[in-house]
């Protein structure tokens, strides 16, 4: 996904994508991030225990924790509520 996104939208995207373990390169490619920013976001989410690091030999992957589900649910409800609370566009 590209375009102008807020940091919360990027966090949400990473957390949803990492519901199954994902490598760093897969995450930055999917979320359209550069490696420096991607590293920053992942470090933040790991530090807040929303992501966990899985090490399998030389391979490192990231997976969302149960704590992340709360953020994902809150985010989804806020964004879907936009279509209930605001006057929509119609012809």
């Amino acid at each position, binding site marked *: *996904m*590209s*375009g*102008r*996104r*807020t940091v*919360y*939208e990027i*966090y*949400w*995207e990473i957390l*949803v994508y990492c519901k199954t373990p994902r490598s760093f390169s897969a995450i930055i490619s999917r979320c359209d991030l550069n490696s420096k920013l991607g590293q920053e976001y992942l470090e933040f989410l790991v530090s*807040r225990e*929303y992501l966990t690091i899985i090490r399998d030999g030389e391979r490192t992957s990231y997976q969302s924790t149960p704590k992340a589900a*709360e*953020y*994902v649910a*809150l*985010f*989804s409800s*806020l*964004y*879907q*509520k*936009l*279509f*209930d*609370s*605001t*006057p*929509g*566009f*119609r*012809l």
Partner: protein
Amino acid sequence: MKPALSQFQKEIRHFSLVASMNLIIGVIAIAAGILYIIAAILGLTASLVNPELRVIAGAIALISLGLGVSVLHVTLRISRGVRTIRKKLEREAPAVTDDRITCLIVQMIAYYRDTRQMLGTIILIGPLCGLCVFVLGIVTGFEAMSLTSTGFSLTLNNRVTILAQVFTLAIVVSSLLSSHYFTKFAMAWNHRIAEIEASECALKEKLGLDDQ
């Protein structure tokens, strides 16, 4: 089907209709501009009442051509991303998951943030484009024009011209309508972006960023 999904789908569909209408207006403006220029080159505009009017009509034809190209270009750019989201929605609905709906909403919001300025441009140049076609139709339809100290009178040449002017009037009305709907679309999404900004506090709190 979830209410958010059905509303989202409806909005995207309606937006596509308005964008299509705008594309048609752009194409007609280009065609009108080119046709007048070709007619002027071939000397078919000599029937116009006076040379000044020919110059004015030529200028309007050029503006119409330029605005038509801009309308076409900007509308195509705006609708490209929306069309992609629409295709995804059509392909995946109604079995789309909750996360996927949110993903498409986020995509649309991100896309709207990117194209907001272009939408502002199209809201402005769309009616101008329609107006140019209309004025070009009027100017080329003059058979006689007189300006005296007591008043101003003009004669349109025949029924076909009057029909053509009704057509150009329909174009100007359509361009005003499409501009009105683009404004409504922009207002709805601006409102949503404002709501997102207001709800960021909750997300910030959830992430434990409220103390920073």
